[in-house]
């Protein structure tokens, strides 16, 4: 490799790193480049549920029918039961 080109590599890699967090450099169809630790908070915020995305998460669900019946009888309210056949409806949906 030409010495001028070789010396340019560190500059290129540094620029690629700065340009977008996870670098595209040497990315194969399946490989995942390293994630800079500086991206932790940004990615955490991007992956967590977004504001207003899932209003059902804000409901204080009970998970016991007995407790629900006791409270419903005491407070004079009807019961809403949300069921899923393959895990809790509050988990993977």
């Amino acid at each position: 490799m030409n010495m001028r080109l070789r010396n340019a590599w560190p500059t290129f890699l540094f620029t690629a790193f700065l340009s977008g967090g996870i670098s595209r450099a040497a990315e194969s169809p399946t490989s995942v480049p390293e994630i800079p630790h500086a991206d932790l908070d940004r990615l955490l915020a991007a992956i967590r549920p977004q504001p207003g995305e899932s209003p059902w998460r804000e409901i204080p669900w009970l998970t016991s029918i007995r407790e629900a019946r006791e409270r419903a009888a005491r407070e004079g309210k009807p019961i809403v039961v949300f069921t899923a056949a393959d895990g809790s409806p509050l988990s993977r949906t």
Partner: protein
Amino acid sequence: MTKHFIPVALDTYFRGSSDELEFCEKIGAGGNHIATGTAGGRRLGQEADLRLRERELSRVLDEFLALPEGERMPALPSTEGSRPPDRPVPRPPPGGTVLRGYCAYLERDESGKLVRAKRFYYEENPDRWAAETQSDTLWLTPEETRSLVPPEPRVGSRVEAPSRVQKRLFGTVGIDYMEGSVNSLRVRESSLTLRVEAATEGSIELRIEGAAKLGKPHDEASRKEPRSRGSEVRIIGRASYDRAKGAFTRFDLVGAGKAWGCKMDYVDREIRIREHPWWYGVACELVAGSTPLDRIPPYNMLHYGEAGKYFEE
């Protein structure tokens, strides 16, 4: 919702003891469904296609309010003699760690940065709806919790997480589980290192790095074949450990991965993604509370996949 109703969420397979099961059967609570009823077990809203929306639930409330007080606030029968649950709901290991995981789709923006991607069910359909962030939990025993902290925590010292922890973390909440009912994937290769960044008498700060290859190796030709799912994921994170309590007080993880294979193994509804492989993101945070929502068992604890039993060695 709580102003007018008492909300309960249940896994149909864990509806409780015989009196609870009987109540569910009376009001038609089971399957993938919303059901409503009085405390005494009178079914409400029977004719409606119930959703968690004001339009449907307001009709149920009208029906309830038209009932006599004795039905709205009944004296409940004793539960003595009730048969205990056939399948008790698993509880987190006492003294262990509970993490809540999240999963979402990612994509690169114009600058190459990974950002959240908005994907839809039945994208071409005018009634399409956006795929929501998925969540799940990860449980660790007290012994597994301690195994994540170097025995002599000096700055720079490190520990590799035991293989059973790597298998559980990567295989259950390190995969793309955006379709929800997705079984765990076998871990083909993985690493998960925790390195001490700061240590005092009271606490230890850890930096986390890891990567895994999961499920089937990528094969473009088999992308529509059943059981062809696989992924590669990298994670980073940070954790704080309280030495006196022997417990984590913070545990943040984020991961970016590429997934491939047939997305329709487990469900009929499709979140169509044109790219193959596609980007996904996962995250985990410590659960410190003890609300019912905080105690929901991990999906793959109950639905075993390729990774085997949840707490298996």
